[in-house]
């Protein structure tokens, strides 16, 4: 038995070691290590072709890997019995509901595939589809179809939910709605692995982010930790008047010729700002449009994936 009392509570939902998936000479996944803890939401962030979907399909048991060790809920997906699927919910990137059925019928049909399903009506309510339950699925809007996808993934009451690009192609309102539903999954204690190529989605929804590019993991951690890893700098900017004196060189200011903006990129924004305002007060410079911008995850992501596109 474990000596560490925490070990009883912190368990691994997904464990991956040195996962490789080769198609001929092409390495779609090139040696990935991954660990997802029970109850966390982990975002798998990367551009198209980075290896996200290949990896998630191996974890879902749809694809056989070239090499490496994979355990999902304690079982190797390649050798998992059907009962393993009782605990797993999947939202595929592209999957339509059966057009001849209503939303309610589709959920009831799928519920019976599981030993201990959730109540279908409650599941429809959870995703906000109660009022469309009697509509044929072909009549549902894109956003409603995606909600039905989620209802179908949840009706078996799984421990672990895979979401492959759950909001790709959504308008901003539909995305916000979906985010709310994914956050609700955390509240009911589900473990979630989601793939996305939207930085804001990863930052908003996940406890941890894993950045993947060209089949390799480039970085992992919380959004803040990722920012630290790339030495992301805060940018102080203002719009100087033509008559203003030049700030001293030690501030490291430069002028962006495209918009005439003066910029200071700094690791230590507090000190830089202090020196800048001291100098400005002494010289009687007003620093119009002064702005302090923290690095966005997008900046971090672009730095991380630079040179890893394909």
């Amino acid at each position, binding site marked *: 038995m474990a000596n560490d009392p925490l070990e009883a509570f912190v368990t691994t939902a997904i464990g991956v070691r040195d996962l490789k998936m080769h198609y001929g000479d092409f390495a779609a996944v090139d040696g990935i290590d991954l660990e997802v803890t029970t109850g966390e939401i982990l975002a798998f962030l990367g551009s198209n072709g980075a290896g996200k979907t290949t990896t998630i399909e191996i974890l*879902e*048991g*749809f694809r056989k890997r070239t090499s490496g060790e994979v355990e999902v809920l304690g079982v190797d997906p390649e050798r998992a019995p*059907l*009962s*393993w*699927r*009782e605990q*797993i919910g*999947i939202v*595929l990137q*592209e*999957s*339509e*509901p*059966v057009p*001849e*059925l209503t939303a309610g*019928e589709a959920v009831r*049909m*799928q519920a*019976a*595939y*599981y*030993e201990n399903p959730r109540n279908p009506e409650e599941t429809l309510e959870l995703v906000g589809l109660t009022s469309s339950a009697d509509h044929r699925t072909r009549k549902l809007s894109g956003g409603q179809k995606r909600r039905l996808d989620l209802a*179908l993934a949840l009706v*078996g009451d799984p421990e672990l939910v895979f979401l492959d690009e759950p909001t790709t192609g959504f308008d901003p309102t539909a995305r916000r709605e979906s985010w709310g539903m994914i956050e609700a999954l955390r509240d009911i204690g589900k473990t979630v692995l989601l793939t996305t190529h939207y930085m804001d989605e990863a930052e908003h929804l996940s406890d941890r982010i894993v950045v993947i590019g060209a089949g390799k993991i480039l970085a992992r951690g919380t959004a803040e930790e990722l920012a630290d890893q790339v030495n992301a700098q805060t940018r102080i900017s203002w719009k100087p008047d033509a008559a203003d004196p030049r700030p001293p060189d030690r501030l490291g200011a430069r002028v962006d010729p495209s918009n005439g903006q003066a910029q200071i990129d700094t690791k230590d924004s507090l000190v830089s700002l202090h020196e800048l305002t001291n100098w400005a007060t002494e010289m009687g410079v007003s620093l119009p449009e002064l702005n302090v911008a923290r690095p966005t995850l997008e900046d971090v992501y672009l730095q991380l994936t630079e040179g890893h596109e394909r």
Partner: protein
Amino acid sequence: MSAFRRVLHQLKFDLLIFRRNPAATFFTVVLPLIFLVLFTSIFGNNTLDNGAKVSTLYVPGILTLAIVSATTVNLAITMTTRRERGMLKRTRGTPIPPWVFILSQMLAGAVIAVAMTVIISVIGRVVYGVSLQFETLPSLAISLVLGAMSFAALGLAMTVIISSEDAAPAVTNAIMLPLYFISGVFLPSDQVPDWVSRIGDLFPVSHMNMALQESYNPFADGAAWPWDHWLVVLGWGLFGAVVALKFFRWTPNR
């Protein structure tokens, strides 16, 4: 849930899906009835020596058409569509055993075949005086269930060679339409050249047709057991089942 109840549950939904699919119901229910009306209008509905109506002879071909439409054609098209649109992949991601899902598709074909036989026989009887022999009912039931399940297995096997949703109706009809003509479904076998019907006899449609003819033969006395035709249909059905079990794909071809 027991395996039996799982199959019944899936069957209920598969029949519902079939009923709501306009193409499937047209080719399975409406078109055969149109053929019944057409055949009796074109070829007439004379009275035979023994007092039976000629329309009785049209029924087996029309039933064969209904059964093949409901099973081979319907499944080849809808299962390809459901595969390419990710519906089958979603199903494969759940704990339902694949054989439950596949058996349900085959049983749905059998239920539809029996229902269509009742509909066409009753309408044929009332409107055109089609003769029905109650002694051949057990044989008819075997032909329907065996035939529907075999042709359903062949439909599932055909999805293996169909690469896309768009190709599905074309490939299916390119195979089935000529078969109808050389198998005595549209034209009586004695009106096509001998070598043509001999080619037709290599395939199961012709034997399904002949097995049903035994049940609707107005000159027959007593029950008929068309073992030879059943064996050919069953052989093709088993071939289809083996191909389907070995090569059936659940994930899109893209």
